[in-house]
């Protein structure tokens, strides 16, 4: 069977093609996400952020793990890698160390980044590895059918907690801040422009940065928790989110029916892993 050559990037024609198409492998579309899912908005905001930053696409690499959010890597017309479950951050770490000039971005989900891959998250943050981690948090394992995950709120129903979750979930904002992230923000997919701004800041910030994107999962999480359609989940966000910059990350817990914080929680500077590594190399007489 003959091997098909990769298709050339579509010529950009204003008002005929979608302005984000040049970032996408359009031959891989339509995407697999359910109607009402927040991943489309999250991906759009990410691509608008890349547009705004104006980086040469050859300097951007995106790494995903497994799950619905993990599919992002496959849709991007960039250097991308779809890792095994949970291993996006170690892959990104290797990539960044081998090519420090690359903008390395991890785009994955709550289950991938904080359950099976949780260890990697805290250590990359601790080292202040110069990568951006974007987590689309839909409060369950959407891809495999809506099981209980590390961010499932107390009381929420999933396929493995049919009478409601009784485990404490992670407060991802607090976790990232305590592990050492130098930029931490949380947005919802209701706020495309605020999200874009947070992503621009996170991507251009030096050091380990983290953006949590709260996103509807009407097929699995929303349905089992009677949250209605994707739009209803966005209405829920509008009614419950409290925008507060500089809030204490400890206050960023999320509980069903209760107000929750969005905004920028951490924005600091400290030496990155590579800077410290180079300083140590110089100290012991190397080139750095």
């Amino acid at each position, binding site marked *: 069977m003959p091997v098909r050559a990769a298709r050339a990037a579509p010529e950009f024609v204003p008002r005929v093609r979608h302005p984000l198409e040049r970032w996408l492998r359009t031959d891989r579309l339509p995407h697999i996400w359910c109607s009402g899912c927040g991943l489309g908005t999250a991906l759009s905001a990410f691509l608008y952020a890349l547009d705004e930053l104006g980086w040469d696409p050859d300097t951007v690499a995106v790494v995903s793990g497994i799950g619905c959010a993990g599919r992002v890597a496959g849709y991007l017309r960039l250097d991308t890698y779809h890792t095994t*479950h949970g291993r996006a951050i170690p892959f990104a770490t290797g990539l960044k160390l081998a090519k420090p000039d690359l903008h390395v971005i991890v785009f994955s989900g709550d289950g991938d980044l904080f359950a099976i891959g949780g260890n990697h998250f805290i250590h990359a943050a601790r080292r202040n590895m110069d990568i951006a981690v974007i987590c689309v948090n839909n409060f369950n*394992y959407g891809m*495999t059918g809506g099981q209980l995950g590390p961010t499932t709120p107390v009381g929420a129903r999933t396929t*493995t907690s*049919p009478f409601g979750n009784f485990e404490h979930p992670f407060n991802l904002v607090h976790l990232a801040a305590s592990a050492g992230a130098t930029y931490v923000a949380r947005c919802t997919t209701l706020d495309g422009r605020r999200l874009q701004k947070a992503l621009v800041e996170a991507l251009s910030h030096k050091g380990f940065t983290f953006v949590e994107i709260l996103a509807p999962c009407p097929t699995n999480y929303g349905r089992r928790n009677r949250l209605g359609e994707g739009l209803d989940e966005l209405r829920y966000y509008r009614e419950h989110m409290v925008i507060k910059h500089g809030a204490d990350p400890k206050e960023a817990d999320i509980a069903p029916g209760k107000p929750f914080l969005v905004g920028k929680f951490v924005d600091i500077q400290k030496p990155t892993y590579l800077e410290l590594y180079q300083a140590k190399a110089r100290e012991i007489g190397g080139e750095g």
Partner: protein
Amino acid sequence: MRKAITGHKAVAEAMRQIEPDVVAVYPITPQSEIAEYYADYVHNGLVRTELIPVESEHSALSACIGAAAAGGRVMTATSSQGLALLVEVLYIAAGLRLPIVMALANRALSAPINIHCDHSDAYLARDSGAVQIFAESAQEAYDYTLMAQRIAEDMRVRLPVIVNLDGFTLTHTVQPVDLLEDEVAKKFVGEFKPFAPLLDVEHPVTWGAFAMSDYYFELKRAQEAGMEAVPAVFLEVQRAFAEVSGRRYEGFFEAYKLADAEYALVVLGSTAGTAKVAVDELRARGMKVGLLKPWLWRPFPGPAVAEALAHLKAVAVLDRAFSFGTMGALYEDVASALYPLEKRPILVNYIYGLGGRDITVPQLVQALEELPKIRRTEWALRYIGLRE
């Protein structure tokens, strides 16, 4: 009681009847529904199991090992990459002689990522020390999950047992399954008898201690003795199961129209169902063909396989996974089993069905029809359904 259920549900029903003390499990396609059904049983109060929705498969089997060493009856289920992640501790479960039963919804290993059936996950655990059983149907997956518990917990064995069922082909398809009455199933499986449990505080023990060059070898030899005990226990359990269920599984493998056959296939799992149709078609055309379908793959019942195949002219062994750089693992098992014979059939090895590639009756008919033309056993892989 006959029900139309999926392979998932069949396994989950067996687990419900076994009612382990602990189930620790992590979602992965195509296994997740086993955990979901079981979660329903737990939360509806049908079982008294502690269900732990852990953060990875490595944690799942680690939690199972802890619970088993504490003296509990424990089970889990996984697939593909999940199996790959937990293999580290699977060796430990076997080395500690812990009778953990695990359903494995067979799925191809990455890369490239794929969610459909092949046997690369089972082959990865081939040398782990776990007993491995393959099911052809949801019925067999149910029956062997019940039987696996008895085999694992037999004091002569005390090893983890993997019950393989083909991902999607068996896990997601609805099939008629005869379920035992709960009391019958529970009585068949019996009460769990912990051995040297950590929770027996009157008799403190240490699990997982160091063994260097002084004792490691002897302990591994003792582990092999557990494996050596499996065939006899397997047959005993099959007989006991026949008494309560009326379903007679006799032997380590199903020998389908093999007794008077001249040519045969050897194949694991659901493809055996397809192979039976191919055998019937060729029999109708007068070709004497048969099928050998191992239920027990680890330990491999070599002498029995050799005896069953010795009279054949040629045999095609089908592997649903590469063992890169050498012949297929099942082929190597069959070839080793046949080697001691003075007169043995010609053997060929086919790799088929990787990543869920369909395998059809005409393809198997063709493989059987080609057997008489093959003059000698060759060190070369052949392929079914591959575009080259």
